[in-house]
Structures are given as structure tokens and as C-alpha cells.
């Protein structure tokens, strides 16, 4: 079983773009008070609008919908530079990575025209409505119903772990539009909910890291127009599985703990102990390899290839590594750096924040167990 991650070399244009992004970040330092490479933390609408004005959201989409018609490689350069710097990207992240490409591929022409330009300008933000209180990894078991009534659907049910539903404008909800049959994957649809106007109740849920990023969203007879169904009613399962593949191989799947590495290098100084050098080198060897694998997958996406298994491999390796990174760092970081109290404070702060977020790394976007199942299927074991 050969698993192919081809050598891909970014072109010289990518250097210019990378340089441009670094200049932009340097000019916007006031948006990075506490740099954090986790893509879920840091909701900053003003920063997202600035990125939109630069053409760095919806970069690969057609110009008619506000896109930049750039390659997947250009998008990767922008996203990895933003994450490595610890820029606040969560406002537009899901819309850019996932909801936009979903609407582009499956949405109606009217939906593309209505939603994509706002996403690309960094002004319109989306949440993902998949999980429910009784539906986690077993996504086909969703119970939220959308019942056709004239020109509308009546939605009843509850979505949970919905990141930024209290801040974002829309949510693409996986719902049951027809009663369940023996084929559990039939009768599911994706429907766009306007979180500000449709009447869904949004309740923030505090997480163990002290953040209030995710929510419970309750639908009690919420009516939405029929033209909000993404693509064809009943096609929800096929759409949702292709949507999940977009979100599995990007740099956000191994860079979440990057700032801990930066602060480790800083606190260890120019003459690290052999143990500290080994820790820094070990972490770097993983980053260098994962990044190249992620670029290989971008190359496959560029060629229109199916990347389900390769993306799952990158996410499996990347998520395990971003949990391992703080574990390596803590054992070699100086306990007390009296000479350099600022670096000491920065390391502790970044380390603690990342450590507290780390349980989510192997849960979001498909748990480790689900991903290993996807890989096993690719290996022909199931």
C-alpha cells in the first residue's frame, strides 16, 4: 500500500506573497496582543475585514463571487503565515475554509451570489451545525428536523458545540428533511440559518480553558425560507462528507501549538542546553515534515484529486503532534529565568493557554478515532 505525498515546490510568486503577508502582520501588531496559533481563538472582525480588503479570504474562488482566483498554494501561504504569527483569524475561518467552498460546489446560483461576496470581504461569518446533544461522531444520527410547510421549512431540535454561533451571522445546519429509513444517510439536508434574524436561541457554553467560543443552538419552531437549502434536499450526507475533507489537511491541523515553540526557543536563548536543543530540534523536525505533507495535499487538491485518506493522515499526525509539542516543551523549559522574566512570563502564558486548549485538538473536525477509521478504510481494512 503506497501512500504518496509528492514533492511539491512552491513557486517564486509565493515568496512575494509571503513577504507581503509578513509586512501586513507587522503593520497590524495591535491586533495580536496575545499571539495564539489556535484557529478557534481570536475573533476580530476588524482584522478579518482588513484581510478581506487584501484579497486573502476566498482566495481560490471565482472573481464573480468576490474571489481571487488564486491557487490552493497561495491560500496555504497566507493561512500558514497568519497562524504562525498567532493572528486572530477565527471570525472568517470557517466561512473561508469550509462554508464558502461548500456553497461554491453545491449551492444554488442565487446562494453563491448572496453569500460568497460577504465572506470574501471578511464581513460575513459562518458556523458549522453538525453535532447535537446525542450526535457526535455518529453524524448520520442527527435528530433536528426541518419539515416542509409551503414556502418554508420548520426547524425543531438542538445543535451543540457550535463554535462562535453567538458571534457569527450564519450557520449551515445538517437536518433531517425526511423521516429516517433503513438507509440512514438518506433524507438529510443542509440548510442555511440566519443566526441574527431567524429566531434560533443561542446559549454560550464555557469551556475548560475559560473561553466561551462554543454554543448550544436551540430551534423551537424556527421557520426558514425553502431557498435556504444548500443544493438538493436529501443530498446532505454526500455534501457534509465532502465538506469535512476540506477541513482536514490545512496548516491549522498542526500549527495550533506553534507559539509555544516560539516562546520555548526564546526562553532557551542562544546557547541552549543539549536537552533543550534536542527538544527544539525534535519539534522542528515534525513541523518541517508535516508542512511538506500539507503542501503535497494542496497539490492534490489543485489537481482535483480525491484527498480523503491523505487529509486524514495529515490531521492524525498533526493533531497528535500539536498535543505532544507542549509536553516536550514543558520538560526542558527553564523553571525560573531570573535573567529574562518577560520571556518566562510569555512562555508560561502561551504554554498554559495551549495546554488547556489541547484536549480539543484531537476532537474537532473528526475525532482521532473517526480519522483512524477513515485511514483504515483507505488501507482496505474495512
Amino acid at each position, binding site marked *: *500500500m*503506497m*501512500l504518496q*505525498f509528492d*514533492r*511539491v*515546490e*512552491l*513557486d*517564486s510568486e*509565493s*515568496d512575494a506573497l*509571503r513577504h507581503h503577508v509578513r509586512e501586513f502582520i507587522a503593520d497590524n501588531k495591535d491586533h495580536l496582543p496575545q499571539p495564539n496559533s489556535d484557529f478557534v481563538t481570536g475573533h476580530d472582525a476588524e482584522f478579518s475585514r482588513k484581510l478581506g480588503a487584501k484579497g486573502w479570504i476566498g482566495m481560490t474562488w471565482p472573481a464573480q463571487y468576490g474571489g481571487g482566483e488564486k491557487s490552493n498554494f497561495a491560500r496555504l501561504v497566507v493561512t*500558514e*503565515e497568519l497562524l*504562525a*504569527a498567532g493572528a486572530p483569524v477565527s471570525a472568517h475561518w470557517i466561512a473561508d475554509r469550509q462554508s464558502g467552498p461548500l456553497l461554491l460546489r453545491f449551492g444554488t446560483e442565487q446562494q453563491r451570489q448572496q453569500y460568497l461576496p460577504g465572506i470574501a470581504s471578511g464581513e460575513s461569518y459562518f458556523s458549522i451545525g453538525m453535532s447535537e446533544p446525542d450526535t457526535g461522531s455518529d453524524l448520520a444520527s442527527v435528530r433536528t428536523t426541518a419539515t416542509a410547510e409551503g414556502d418554508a421549512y420548520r426547524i425543531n431540535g438542538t445543535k451543540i458545540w457550535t463554535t462562535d454561533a453567538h458571534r457569527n451571522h450564519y450557520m449551515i445546519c445538517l437536518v433531517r428533511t425526511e423521516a429516517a429509513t433503513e438507509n440512514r444517510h438518506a433524507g438529510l439536508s443542509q440548510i442555511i440559518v440566519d443566526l441574527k434574524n431567524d429566531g434560533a436561541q443561542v446559549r454560550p457554553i464555557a469551556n475548560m480553558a475559560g473561553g466561551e467560543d462554543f454554543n448550544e443552538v436551540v430551534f423551537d419552531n424556527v421557520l426558514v425560507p425553502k431557498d435556504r437549502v444548500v443544493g438538493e434536499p436529501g443530498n446532505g450526507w454526500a455534501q457534509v462528507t465532502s465538506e469535512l475533507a476540506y477541513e482536514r489537511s490545512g496548516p491549522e491541523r498542526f500549527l495550533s501549538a*506553534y507559539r509555544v*515553540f*516560539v*516562546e520555548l*526557543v*526564546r526562553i532557551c*536563548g*542562544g*546557547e*541552549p542546553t*543539549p536537552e*533543550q*536543543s*534536542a*527538544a*527544539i*530540534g*525534535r519539534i*522542528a*523536525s*515534525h*513541523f*518541517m*515534515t*508535516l*508542512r*511538506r*505533507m500539507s503542501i*503535497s495535499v494542496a497539490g492534490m487538491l489543485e489537481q482535483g484529486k480525491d484527498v480523503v485518506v*491523505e487529509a486524514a*493522515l495529515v490531521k*492524525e*499526525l498533526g493533531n497528535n503532534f500539536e498535543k505532544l509539542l507542549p509536553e516536550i516543551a514543558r520538560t526542558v523549559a527553564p523553571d525560573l529565568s531570573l535573567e529574562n522574566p518577560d520571556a518566562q512570563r510569555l512562555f508560561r502564558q502561551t504554554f498554559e493557554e495551549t495546554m488547556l486548549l489541547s484536549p480539543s485538538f484531537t476532537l474537532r473536525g473528526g475525532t482521532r*478515532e473517526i*480519522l*483512524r*477509521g477513515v*485511514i*483504515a478504510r*483507505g*488501507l482496505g*481494512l*474495512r
Partner: protein
Amino acid sequence: MDTRQLIEDTASKIFTDHCDKALLDRCEQGDFAEDLWQQIIANGFHQLGDAASGTTPADIFAFLKVCGRFAVPLPMAELLLGHSWAVAQLAPCEGLVSIGRQHGKQAIQVPWGRRAQRVFGVAENSQVVCVADAPVCVQEGSNMAAEARDTIELGPDTQQITLSDDPFAQMALARTNLMAGTLQSTLDLGLQFAAEREQFGRSISKFQAIQHSLAVVAAEVAAAQRAADAGVDALGTDRFIAEVAASKARVGEAVGIVAEQVHQVHGAMGFTHEHRLHHFTRRLWAWRDEWGNETHWQRVLGARIAGLGADQAWGFIATRG
């Protein structure tokens, strides 16, 4: 078909026909794989990397990956790198060429040093290598995979040549590519065994625990392939040592995980001498410690990044290729 593909396909065919379990067992008893050696020479593989043969130094490492897949019991890395180092600097050597770590007047851990007609001694942090054309074997030895690793007296008439790519790192990269190939074979053996072995009335590949173990193995094997290629791509660049450091450290880490999981999947069967799995896993365990283990190379890479400083680390990682 491009040259690289032709090299890989031809090598695979020769090894499929001439490198089986029986040969590996015989070589562990001290036999030299003479027939296989003759096949390799007859097909011109000893000239790989020489521009006159229309191949590049990178082709050597692609060929070593294939050698790793078959656990080829010959010092191919030493022969090919030794030839490529000699080009334009030394008289050609028709016999066996090998390479060891220089230790005073000796070269140690020299693969098949006892049969070598030319031996190179390589020291760390030096682009100068020592060459002996009348080497004397003073002690025969072996590594944990029962591959010949001998101590050689280099003698009074040694020459010195200077290489552009760090020779110690080239040797580490050779082991890295051999390991990448061998890791691929251990995954294949694990998949094959899990499909064939039945317990509780079904193939053990149907159990989720086994599926997840093999998924972990596949992820490590995929990472190892990409890491090994990255080291090869840095040949001739000023990042060569740092990229080899990342490459050997990452692949060495994969070895520990993969060998452990694949043995567990194979159960007691894989612990027998009769099963061929150990020919691969013992080589992996030996090679990850030759020419610098993970810690050695992690320190090299870490010191380089520490020297650049925290805010330059990303610029170092975010390369174009």
C-alpha cells in the same frame, strides 16, 4: 518512463527475483550475497549517481529506498556513495567499496569491511574524508541485524579528499532512505498478516483495535517517506545538514512506533525466526542508531534554530520546497 522510475522498477524486479528470505538467512550466517552482487553489477547499478551514466546523486537515494524495501543484504549505500565520492578525485576501484566512522587510524562499523578493497573513514563535522586502498580488517563484527560491521586499520598510505556535501550527513541520509523503504515493507507485512490471520471466527483486520494500530503505522510510514525525500532534495544546498537532521530524526522516531505496532499485530508469529518480519525490524532498529541517532540530529537542528532566534524560526521552517 523517466530514469528514476526505470531505476526503481528494474531494482524491484531484480530484488523480487534474487533477494528472498533464504538469502537473508544465509547472509546472517556470514555468507556474502555473491549472486545478487553480480546481478547488481551486471545491471550497472554500481554506476548510479555518476553523471556519465545519465543519473544523479539523488538517484542513489531513490535506489536505496528500494534496497530498504527488500532488506538487501549488501553495503549498497557505501558502494554507491563511495563511488560518487571517488569520481574525479581518485582512481576507480573495481572491488567492494565501504565506509565507516573514522576513529584515529581506524574506521569502525564498516559494512563488509572484511571484503572491501577501498575504505573511507568519515568524521563528524568535517568535509574531508580519509581513503585507504589497502585496508586491513582487524576485527569482524555485526550490528543487531547481523549485518557485517567490521573494524578496519586504514594503514599508513591513506589519501584525503574533500567533499562539498557533508559526508557524515550523506551517510545519515543513506540510512534514512534505507529506513523509509523498510518502513514501507513493515506496513505491507502488517496489512497482509492482519488480512490473513483469523481469530474469533474472522480476520483480525476486522477488529477496530488492529485497524487503529495499522492506521498509526500508515501515518508514520507516510511521514517517513516525505521526510526522507526532503533530505535528498537538500543535496548541494546550504540547508543540507539541517534538512538531513530533520529527516533522520523524524524517520528514526517513526521506526520506534512502527516496529512496536507491527510486531504487536503479528503476535507470536512475528517473533519467530521463521517469519521474515524480523529481517526488516532488526534493520530498522540498527539503522536508526547508525550515523547519529534521533537525539544527535535533533540537537544539530535545535542548535541551528536556537542560533537563529525565536522570531526567525518560522522563516527557517517555511521553505518553498
